[in-house]
């Protein structure tokens, strides 16, 4: 990623891994600090997550009460409650909605400044996004989970390896989500305004990531197609299924592996698209 084929001159980032790790961490920290300044918005958002947690939790518990065997999609009521509340907590951590930084900078032409930096844009944005996710994990994740715990019985994991696997799965969800968002935003390189693709993304990602209802409620063939054929279940459904131990240990690990494949594919795709875009980029206004 030396940027030799880019029209805009880039300074080669070099190969010294220690400096690049330090840079990566500095960028990550800057992302963390940036979101830490929006304290009131954090409180307001957490309140809304909690209200939606109540709404979705009650509806799914009523579905469980009416379902034959009381296990819709193979989840018992405690698993469903955990699914909903942890899902509300992860929503902002994974950040499927509302990230338009890149497309805004493309439209305004500010992206030119990103290309002059000695770090490839995808890496720099990924670092900042991980910082954003980390801040979300410390602030936005906790309130809905605590609220849910106060009012509903949760499923506690039976296997110790579930916890580290969940942590890995959340990290992969953030990376996968970043890849998707970068690609959607990058359409602005060609369209100048990514609003259309962004609206489509908002619409599809919520329902197909398993936010409105667990995807296991869909017919099997459809659920499997979504899982294998799209990165979307990896953004929310996979970490939640891992945490509530919906499947046995083998499938649990398998789902995370599939999620990892999709995360790598999406970030690689973002890097490729970025390269192509740099080749054709004409900065707005000169």
């Amino acid at each position, binding site marked *: 990623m030396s940027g030799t084929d880019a029209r805009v001159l880039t300074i080669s980032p070099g190969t010294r891994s220690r400096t690049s790790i330090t840079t990566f961490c500095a960028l990550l920290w800057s992302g963390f600090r940036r979101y830490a300044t929006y304290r*009131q918005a954090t409180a307001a958002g957490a309140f809304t997550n909690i209200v939606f947690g109540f*709404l*979705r939790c009650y*509806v799914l518990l009523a579905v469980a009460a009416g379902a034959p065997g009381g296990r819709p999609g193979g989840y018992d009521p405690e698993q469903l409650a955990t699914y909903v509340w942890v899902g509300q907590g992860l929503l902002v951590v994974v950040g499927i909605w509302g990230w338009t930084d890149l497309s805004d900078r493309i439209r305004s032409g500010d992206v030119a400044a990103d290309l002059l930096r000695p770090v490839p844009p995808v890496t720099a944005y990924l670092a900042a996004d991980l910082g954003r996710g980390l801040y979300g994990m410390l602030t936005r994740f906790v309130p809905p989970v605590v609220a849910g715990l106060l009012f509903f019985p949760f499923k506690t994991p039976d296997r110790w390896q579930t916890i580290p696997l969940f942590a890995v799965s959340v990290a992969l969800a953030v990376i996968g989500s970043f890849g998707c968002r970068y690609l959607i935003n990058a359409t602005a390189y060609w369209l100048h305004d990514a609003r*259309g693709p962004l609206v489509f993304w908002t*619409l599809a990602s919520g*329902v197909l990531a398993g936010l409105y*209802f667990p995807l296991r*409620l*869909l017919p099997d063939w459809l659920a499997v197609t979504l899982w294998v054929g799209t990165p979307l279940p990896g953004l929310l459904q996979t970490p939640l299924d891992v945490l509530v131990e919906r499947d046995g240990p083998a499938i649990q690990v398998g789902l995370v592996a599939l999620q990892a494949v999709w995360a790598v594919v999406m970030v690689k795709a973002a890097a490729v698209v970025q390269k192509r875009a740099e080749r054709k980029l004409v900065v707005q206004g000169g």
Partner: protein
Amino acid sequence: MAEPDKTAELRNPYLALLGGKLRSMASYRTSFAVELLTNAGGTVIDVATVFVLFQAAARIGEFTLAEALMMTGLTSAGFVLADMTVGNIDDLKRYVRTGTLDAVLVRPLGVLPQLVCMDLPVRKLLRLIVGIGVLVVAVGMNDIDWTPARVLLLVISPLTAAVFFGAIFVISASLAFWWVESGEVGSAFTYGGRDFASYPITVYGGWFRAVFAYTLGFAFVAYQPALAILDRPDPLGLPAWAGYMSPLVAPAAATVAWLVWRAGVRHYRSTGS
């Protein structure tokens, strides 16, 4: 800017505001088409969710799919109507932060009507058709014992629901007068209220139901009218005539909204920028 129909526009300045909006929309046709489709898609997904959930359970909160769909239909028709007319009041926090509101305040026109006309979302038109379509399907799926009172209730309920949601939109937006960074708090009551009213309220538990259904009044958006239309006794014990209370609840909510809005505009101090 000299248009031939200038005199007509001067006679009705709101018409001028709307005309400007329509002209700007006509110049971005593709973007308009995309917005038209995606807006309708949102409602389609909400309704599809109801179908998916009833796929897993034949009865949810003691109601069948057909009965629940009646509530979903009334809610979505009413919500979309409100969203189309006053929904963009959501942007108030942006107007307050950027100072656009000052420009609105100095004009010799009503503040609320101006803000409504600043962005009439024609792009939500398809969504309205979907919303009303759901209600029509719901009416078809149920075996209703029609009486003049029930026909009237069916026609009037989406309108009272719209007035009610409109009031909720205005109240949530007014929050920005006191708290600019209120962010998503309003959505908990607008979109959250829509989600709440889309399902039979028997699914919700205890105090949460008490707050949303009876204190805030969301039970009267769709649940009570639907019970009255379907001639079903309320499992929660309210009498049958409660369904006919919505036309009273909606104006009450609108009055509260008007008072909150007026207090907000009076409280407003420009950011000065």
